[in-house]
């Protein structure tokens, strides 16, 4: 059995650490790329959302490299993601890719079935070792996200442009050759120190933008056209509320253990969206309100075409924009999105935010030229 898993931003580091520690044979698919997206688009239903297409591309590319089992997490709706496992299974089989799909989930709270699957995955490991591995994996996911957050902070204020990118890309490649959570944690620590040692301009007060939206398109840098990096290099500090570690802790760990969940965004979303409707709609609404209250300059919402929960969020966002006075840009991504059009929109939005800040700093209402 050779396991593979779909890419989503830096999740591969977390998955790698988990599988390394459990001693399971695996094959990481090539990083998300155009070719993988093309393969996925060919096999997936036309109207399926982008992540499914990207995932299928990953599986098939990994299959060609020898993987035979797909490991993904599941869910029970109402977002389509919960049925990805079955869709992938059907599509792979119908097209002659002989792959097994293993879903890590609690099917209707059935813990026995969950343990059976874990056992199938790990062979005969004892439960204490598994728990320890899980703890380490969560640690890795947290550290990876912290590192990413650090790059968001340092990119706009570094003096020698491009140094953070250089260190970070180096890290992403090196991590593929590192084995086990211990080594990965060490590498993260080293990278972190490298970044912290960089020369920075402390006087700069960069524009601040919050990124909200559907988890896959915001976290995965290939699908979001590296938006955090691009904004960072334009001198803008970015923050993204949804992270991999957050997702693991909030959605998996806290579902199993009786720990109180993070309710901040729920409170913030309450006046606009009264209930959980699946996906990340409530997070999108709540985090936008939180960003507005934290005096961010703007918010960018990103989601894949036909994403059901985010459409609800998009129709509610204008109210927040009006009530809390924060500009919001919505970007919708599918397999046909062109980078030029996408970038034009982002740049126009940034120009607007800059002008807006000038107006506030100048303390006077600026008049448009020629009017």
């Amino acid at each position, binding site marked *: 059995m050779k396991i593979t898993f779909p890419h989503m931003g830096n999740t591969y580091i977390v998955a790698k650490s988990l599988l390394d520690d459990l001693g399971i044979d695996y094959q990481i698919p090539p990083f998300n790329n155009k070719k993988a997206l093309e393969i996925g688009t060919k096999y997936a239903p036309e109207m399926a959302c982008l992540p499914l297409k990207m995932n299928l591309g990953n599986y098939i590319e990994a299959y060609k490299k020898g993987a035979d089992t797909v490991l993904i997490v599941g869910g029970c709706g109402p977002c389509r993601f919960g049925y990805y496992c079955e869709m992938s299974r059907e599509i792979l089989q119908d097209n002659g890719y002989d792959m097994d799909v293993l879903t890590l989930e609690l099917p209707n709270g059935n813990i026995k079935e969950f343990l059976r699957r874990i056992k199938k995955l790990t062979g005969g490991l004892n439960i204490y070792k598994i728990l320890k591995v899980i703890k380490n994996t969560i640690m890795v996911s947290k550290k990876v996200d912290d590192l990413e957050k650090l790059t968001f902070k340092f990119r706009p204020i570094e003096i020698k442009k491009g140094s953070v990118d250089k260190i970070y890309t180096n890290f992403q490649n090196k991590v593929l050759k590192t084995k086990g959570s211990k080594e990965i944690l060490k590498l993260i620590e080293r990278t972190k120190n490298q970044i912290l040692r960089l020369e920075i301009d402390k006087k700069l007060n960069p524009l601040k933008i919050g990124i909200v939206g559907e988890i896959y398109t915001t976290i995965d840098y290939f699908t979001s056209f590296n938006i955090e990096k691009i904004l960072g290099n334009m001198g803008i500090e970015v923050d993204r509320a949804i992270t991999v570690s957050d997702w693991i802790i909030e959605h998996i760990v806290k579902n199993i253990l009786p720990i109180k969940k993070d309710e901040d965004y729920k409170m913030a979303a309450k006046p606009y969206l009264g209930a959980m409707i699946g*996906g990340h709609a409530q997070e999108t609404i709540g985090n936008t309100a939180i960003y507005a209250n934290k005096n961010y300059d703007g918010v960018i919402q990103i989601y894949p*075409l036909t994403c059901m929960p985010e459409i609800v969020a998009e129709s509610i966002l204008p*109210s927040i924009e009006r009530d809390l006075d924060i500009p919001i840009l919505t970007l919708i991504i599918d397999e046909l999105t062109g980078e030029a059009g996408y970038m034009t929109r982002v740049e126009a939005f940034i120009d607007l935010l800059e002008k807006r800040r000038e107006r506030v700093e100048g303390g006077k209402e600026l008049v448009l030229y020629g009017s």
Partner: protein
Amino acid sequence: MNKKIGIPRALFYYQYYPLWKVFFEELGAEVILSDNTTKKIMDDGVKLTVDQACLPVKLFHGHILNIKDKVDYLFIPRFTSVSKNEYICPKFGGLPDMVRNTIKDIPKIIDTEINLRKSDKKVLEAVLEIGKIFTQDVRRIKNAYKKALENYYEFRNKVKEGTLPCDILEKKFNVIRKNSKHRLNIALIGHVYNIYDKYSSMNVIGKLKNDDIDIITIDMIDDEIINKNVKHLKKQMFWNYGRKAIGAVSHLIERGDIDGIICLMAFGCGIDSFVCDLIERKIRKDSKIPFIVLNIDEHSGEAGMNTRLEAFIDMIRWRNKNEDNVSAYG
């Protein structure tokens, strides 16, 4: 004066209207329906909503605009789930918020949450919450709900006997015409609000009926049969519609008297994108029943729809005529 409750003729109107109508009327309210979908309603809806929304949601907004000035309350319950362990489309859950944030000057919205995911008993809580707007008399509310349920079951039974919900709701009854043509059984699979809306579906039902076709929809199939037929799924479908559609199609394949299956989906429908695909795979694998997917959106041209439908029906009739299935070539 009686309180006026506005119910848009869209989305779950086609599934639950008999229930709501009797319930509100028993409580002494006046139920006001929006008009049948027209071009104006559709255009209004399209203008109001974000361009990403699917056609039924756009129509819903159009219908709201149509009645909002005539009523005291709008009835837009927050449908999270209508059956145990299952959901419906996330857009239904956010519907009252969507409406509130896109349409200005709107009357009070009754947005009680209906969530039967954990337990069926929640429905009574929701009923009491809605009823308390009109009366504090709990017994009266319960009685009204009981009567409403009776009416609803009567409606459901009629549907199961083979009458189309849209005919019952519009009080139209079938006149079976004598015709020499052989009658076909065609299954029309799709969300209730897509297939029964005469305007947005471009009257698919009417067109099929005029062509001497008996229509079978998911609603006509008993829940027990559906549940029996979804057992082959490795993972239980968590959408109410998805389970019904897949169960119904599996049943129809086994039944053997179905001449063709039409899947009517709205462009951009997240659930349909998966369910239709699964249905298609199932039909192609397990049977030789002709199958077609028709897509509707606000731009659909009727001519294109007619062409596709006619071609599909003609093909089936030819196939039936040449029983030995002679190849069309040469």
